[in-house]
């Protein structure tokens, strides 16, 4: 495997008394595409939200691009600049135009000059084929378009890792493909991606490795061909039987 960029070692996390992540060990290499799947409530979203510390872990270590995530706010800020995230509910800023959504962090986090921020934003919007919508507000776009804006917004920060938290789950069926296509193009460009999704087709065609979680544990991880053909655990077979078309 290539040089690791995300490392989970013995990570445990609780929500109150609920043990949501149990003894997580996971290494993601540079340029790797990981798909995390599992039944709902298995902790997969929590897992990737720990990578940019939207959730704090209580035990173990998480290292992202050489920086260990700790209470120290500076380490969190450093990591967040390296890691982009796309959410299930898009989470665009509704009071800003599409262009302003993308330039906001460029102006106020990277402190780029206005012209440069706008040029970079437009470039990213073109990349997800939505450049012509720059002046509109998010509420005027379809779900698929909004999610592509969210991808452009994250990409504009030039992250080294992209996290996707069920990016197509809130979309109408006919819009899923346009978002998956944007993600596919990104994957072909060599971006490191960790994707929580139920889109097994995407896992099969894009992932280098599929990670299966259940009840807070990583039950198995394998390249997709192996994962889908010969799952080792009963629990995995069970899950696949439910989500794969027969």
């Amino acid at each position, binding site marked *: 495997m290539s040089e690791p960029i995300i490392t989970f070692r013995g990570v445990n996390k609780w929500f109150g008394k609920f043990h949501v992540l149990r003894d997580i060990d996971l290494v993601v290499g540079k340029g790797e595409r990981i798909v995390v799947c599992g039944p709902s409530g298995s902790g997969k979203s929590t897992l990737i939200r720990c990578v940019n510390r939207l959730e704090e872990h209580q035990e173990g270590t998480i290292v992202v691009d050489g920086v260990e995530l700790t209470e120290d706010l500076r380490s969190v800020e450093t990591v967040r600049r390296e890691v982009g995230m796309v959410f299930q509910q898009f989470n665009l800023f509704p009071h800003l135009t599409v262009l302003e959504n993308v330039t906001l962090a460029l102006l106020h*986090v990277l402190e780029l000059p206005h012209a440069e921020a706008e040029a970079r934003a437009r470039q990213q919007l073109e990349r997800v084929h939505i450049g012509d919508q720059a002046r509109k507000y998010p*509420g005027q776009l379809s779900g698929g378009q909004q999610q592509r804006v969210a991808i452009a917004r994250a990409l504009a920060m030039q992250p080294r890792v992209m996290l996707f938290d069920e990016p197509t789950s809130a979309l109408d069926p006919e819009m899923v493909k346009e978002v998956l296509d944007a993600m596919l193009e990104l994957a072909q460009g060599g971006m490191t991606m960790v994707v929580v999704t139920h889109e097994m087709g995407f896992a099969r065609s894009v992932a280098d490795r599929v990670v299966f979680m259940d009840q807070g544990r990583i039950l198995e991880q394998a390249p997709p061909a192996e994962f889908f053909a010969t799952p080792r655990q009963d629990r995995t077979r069970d899950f696949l039987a439910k989500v794969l078309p027969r």
Partner: protein
Amino acid sequence: MPTPAGAAGHSELGGPRLPPERPGGAWAWARRNLFASAWSTLATVGAVSAAALVLPATVRWTLLDAVWRPDYQACRALDYRGACWGMVAEKHRLILFGRFPNAEHWRPLVATLLVVLALLVSGHPRAWRRWLLGLWATVAAAFFVLMRGGVLGLSPVGSEQWGGFPLTVLLTLAGVGASIPLGVGLALARRSGLPLLRAGARLYIELVRGVPLITVLFVATFVFPLVLPQGMPLDALGRIVLAITLFQAAYMAEVVRGGLQALPRGQLEAAESLGLGWWQTQRKVILPQALVLVIPSFVNSLLSTFMDTSLVTVVSMYDLTGALRLALGDAQWRNFFIEGYLFVGTIYLVCCFGLSRYSHWLEARLGRWARQEPSRA
């Protein structure tokens, strides 16, 4: 351009067509809106007969039989069968400007007009730029120079002589204006991750909201001078403005908190994931949305402060209603207090109605993004 084939295809599929026309005309409208059912008819008849009962007498009293000249004998002769607007004609300067020296009334008039002008300018979102702060600083300075005098050849007028409408405007705007940043700060503190800050904000809000404004005004007038450090340049008026600000801030904090809580958590997470710091997140993402959400409740508390300022009469300040009471001190015109209150009430009504219309307009303008449903196309 529709080809015949295309047109035919369209109609076969049942393409879009206009909605069926409603029967037009006044009668059809009335049938739909006034006499749709037995209850609707009853309500219409009731409302119309109530108006028929009240309106003619009202018009006669306020307009037809009224005396407009400041003529005391004519007013007496009316024996209350018509309004004596002469009372207002006689006393309007006292009501509007309180005990401000008569010869200098142009000063509060110009000062108030300047403030109103500045308000009109700042009403438009396009004026929400940095220069607006400069404009308000200038207007505030001009207001105080005009009111206080003592420079530029203006005779000095102590703040204890200020009164009437300018005082009402000053108390409301200074109190509410200063309470906005304080209230936003309190609201943010109350949702902060730091327990001490959170507890402090909460204690302050609960404490202040548990006390009536009138008590706060008494405390400001009689207790502040004892506890404030010696030599603080704060006269009675300054203490009252401070009291209204501190009082209003607690309510403002809860108004703002309502807006903050209405925002989905994802907004915060998206901002954080982009690397925005706490303050940038609040300023660029959270507050702009939260403040638009609270415009209706904000205007609500602005209006109630506008009215509540009349409580300052208990500490010997003569705002609009206080100045009216001064005017009614004249034994001759005392009996025509109803006309006086109607006059003052009309001023309040015009201001509040204007403000309310403005807030509707602003809400619609700023909330454009909020009303656009995500299209599913």
